[in-house]
């Protein structure tokens, strides 16, 4: 399989709106104490990069639903680039 058949997917997993994000809250407090009062909210998530043979976005979505994100507490967004 040549590299031309590879595709890279970036997956951004973030806490669902309305779900408490203790890490984001801690970072928000720290930014305020540094004087960055303009910051109104911080949400901290995960950034996952997949290199996939063939590269079916549908299957990547399936991977997110099954394993990479927990839909009860997390949301995700997929961005793809041709390899």
């Amino acid at each position, binding site marked *: 399989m040549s590299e031309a058949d590879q595709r890279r997917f970036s997956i951004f997993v973030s806490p669902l709106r309305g*779900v*408490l*994000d*203790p*890490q984001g*809250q*801690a970072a928000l407090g720290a930014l305020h104490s540094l004087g960055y009062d303009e910051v109104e909210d911080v949400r901290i998530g995960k950034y996952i990069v997949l290199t996939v043979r063939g590269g079916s976005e549908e299957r990547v979505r399936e991977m997110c639903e099954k*394993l*990479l994100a*927990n839909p*009860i*507490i997390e949301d995700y967004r997929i961005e793809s680039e041709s390899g």
Partner: protein
Amino acid sequence: MRFGVIVFPGSNCEMDCHYVIEKVLGQEVRYVWHQESDLRGLDCLVLPGGFSYGDYLRCGAIARFSPVMEAVRDFAARGGLVIGICNGFQILLEAGLLPGAMLRNNSLSFVCRFVHLRVENRDTPWTGKAERGQVLRIPIAHGEGNYTAGEGLLDEMERRGQIILRYCGPAGEVTPEANPNGSARNIAGICNEGFNVFGLMPHPERASEEILGSTDGLFIWESALAAAGV
């Protein structure tokens, strides 16, 4: 009664559970490696605490796909007793055998200390030996025990009696101060709708002998024995 203690790569409380079941309760017990799929002959499964698969991605997220989990699902569907302690609870949540999910503790700290727990429902295989409203003293040790579920689901669970243990003060008062991790409605332990699957963050196996400072964990183990007619 025959117990199976499931061992995932990264479990670290399996020996404590095995010890309590064999030496303190005097019951039969064997380890079940996560690659096994034959659970015949077992009456109760224990998913112990630890850091299965390094807690990578999310706690329990990878362990739930271990080969043994398919067998655990069948075992639970047939009404078999399943208890998940700490990381075991997280695995049961990720597997969908219990409702809801876990978030990081609101303090962002790993919390390791004794807590008080109020028994909210004694009409379960796990709490029959306790009184309703009884306060148990059992330790917790976790970084992600901040239980969450939708408000509608929480109301349903309350109505069905699925909330089994709540963090409380020494006299049983359920207050924000008694909540060690930010858990919704001070929840420390829940059951599925059939009450045969139980998940809790506290470690009953660490409170089953006088020398460890509390024997309140025995209420849970002995309730399970009684439920199985032992």
